[in-house]
């Protein structure tokens, strides 16, 4: 067999090549499926983008904090013990926002987390069990907004808009 003949595409080789292409395509499809399904492992529900209004204060004291519990976080059991972290960005942050998970039945809620612009991810819910017996859990996100009189107001300072990101990952 000459080298020229070796380069030609025989039906057998064409078959094997097509089989390889199908295999690669299958791997790509499964990978994309896994990536897309990973996004569904953690979802935020309830009010999509909550707004918290601080409207009152106490003379000689401080502004009255406001709690918002209109959002929930739904997560799915994983094969390994997992945790959820939270991080936030808020350019030109003037006021204060903290979050804590309430009603946590799968895992352990971390103490209230102060959300600060550019913060690193901080543990939010830890020790999410991998053992069978549950599929999903949906605790409440309890946001607390606060401000001091010295922080000013939104007319002069603008609103604080926090982009808050939650990540479900192996612990």
């Amino acid at each position: 067999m000459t080298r020229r003949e070796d380069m030609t595409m025989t039906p057998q080789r064409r078959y094997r090549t097509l089989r390889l292409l199908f295999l690669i395509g299958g791997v790509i499809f499964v990978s994309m499926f896994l990536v897309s399904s990973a996004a569904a492992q953690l979802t935020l529900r309830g009010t999509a983008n909550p707004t918290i209004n601080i409207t009152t204060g106490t003379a000689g004291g401080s502004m009255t904090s406001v709690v918002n519990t209109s959002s929930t976080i739904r997560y799915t059991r994983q094969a390994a013990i997992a945790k959820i972290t939270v991080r936030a960005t808020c350019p030109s942050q003037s006021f204060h926002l903290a979050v804590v998970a309430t009603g946590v039945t799968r895992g352990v809620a971390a103490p209230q987390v102060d959300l600060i612009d550019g913060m690193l991810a901080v543990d939010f819910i830890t020790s999410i069990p991998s053992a069978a017996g549950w599929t999903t859990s949906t605790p409440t996100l309890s946001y607390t907004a606060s401000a001091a009189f010295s922080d000013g107001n939104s007319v002069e300072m603008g609103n604080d808009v926090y982009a808050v990101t939650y990540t479900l990952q192996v612990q």
Partner: protein
Amino acid sequence: MDMARAPIRFRKPTDLNKALVFPALLLIFACVPQGASAQVYGTDSHNVTVTVATVNIVQVSAGTASLTLSAAAVTAGVNLMGPVTNSATSLLWGFNSSLRKVTVKTNLAAPKFILKVLAVAPTQGTASPEVTLSTTAADFLINTGRSSGSCTIQYSGSALASAGTGTDTHTITFTVAAQ
């Protein structure tokens, strides 16, 4: 020859094999980082907006303050009686707007006696000089900035002996105003 059992041979890559190199590398680069961070099962985010209304408030700690000019406040041969002072009340405030001040006035248009007021030991800002109360608002506390604080309200009452006896009842109003 049974192709399925043919020994593996290394052949010169065909154009088709070359064409597979790029998708294969793409797949590796696409999947390996996912695998490397495979500990991440999912992520989601939303925006939370915090708004703070304009809040500028003042509050007097107690309802009433009484001053009595008695014989003890009289000096023989001097027409002016007193003064006597009362520091039983205090003013509390909270301003989250810049450039605010507190003014003070009375509702009593024609008082028989003299009543003055002074902010004592403000925790923020600057006390204005002692003000003789009238129905026209006068500065009581200035330069507070955005703050929360308090001060003692010191009333000072005096009277001319020639004014005789009687009682003045004032309703004192403290107001937040732009400075």
